[in-house]
């Protein structure tokens, strides 16, 4: 038990360091790359209105799905996943990202809960519930990543 805690403490720092680099990549692709960004930064829209995408994104979607293809948020994501090699790389990255983020977040959450819950039974319940939630999120997250674009 003590050894597991020391390992987790060490892993928390390692995953944290990895997350800095993974988050930079994630933010860049999702928000700043004009072709791949699914949330286009400059735009605030009114209710139910679709955001307008930059020329790079429109050109990318047309090149991938034909001249009639519309640059909707879904299509902008799909153009990235349409290339098999690229898709495997991104899916691999996202699965790794998911595991690292969940471990880091839920280990940290457990540290916080252990500090405030004094009762051993309460700690066990909090620990079991939180890791069950993490496992559930891992499963639905993996499902979303793997099936996206199928």
């Amino acid at each position, binding site marked *: 038990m003590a050894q597991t805690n020391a390992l987790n403490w060490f892993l928390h720092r390692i995953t944290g360091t990895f997350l800095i680099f993974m988050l930079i990549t994630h933010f860049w692709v999702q928000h700043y790359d004009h072709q791949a960004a699914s949330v286009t930064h400059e735009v605030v829209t009114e209710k*139910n209105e679709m955001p307008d995408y930059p020329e790079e994104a429109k050109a990318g979607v047309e090149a991938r799905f034909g001249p009639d293809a519309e640059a909707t948020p879904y299509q902008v994501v799909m153009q990235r996943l349409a290339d098999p090699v690229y898709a495997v790389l991104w899916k691999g990255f996202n699965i790794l990202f998911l595991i690292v983020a969940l471990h880091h977040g839920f280990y940290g959450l457990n540290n916080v809960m252990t500090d405030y819950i004094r009762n051993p039974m309460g700690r066990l319940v909090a620990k079991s519930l939180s890791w069950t939630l993490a496992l559930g999120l891992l499963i639905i997250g993996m499902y979303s990543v793997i099936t996206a674009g199928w």
Partner: protein
Amino acid sequence: MAVDTKERPPATQQTDATAEQESRVQPYRIRTGMFAWMMHRLTGVGLVVYLIIHIWGLTALTDPETFNALIAKYHSPIFKVGEFGLLVAVAYHAMNGLRIVLIDFLGWSPKQKKLFWTLGAVTLAIVAVGGWPSIYALGEWLLGPGSMPTLFL
């Protein structure tokens, strides 16, 4: 009235000093390190909550219509404000976490204070550059198209 003994002083004559000592709440002096730690906790818990919502939201990827509706919602003003707040929390947590790693692994504790303020400046730079698109979008929406300068975009 009974005789007051040394062992059992009267409750009415309790001084303020003893009352303070018996209080369950200890007054803390909040210093830089303590403040950094509290903010790390607060942003950490906030980010776990966000992570849960974020992973759950991504199940929308299985259906184009649902996904488009979700992303359209992410462009509404309130989400742009949230997006900026999220960046602040992430940037702070990442840079303070880096400070912890440098202290734990490389033994940089003598340089703690300097490290804290240096990384604080880096955090501000990340928030300014990274958060500009959200501020720009909100400014354009509030003040009208063309009213914001197109920096870094």
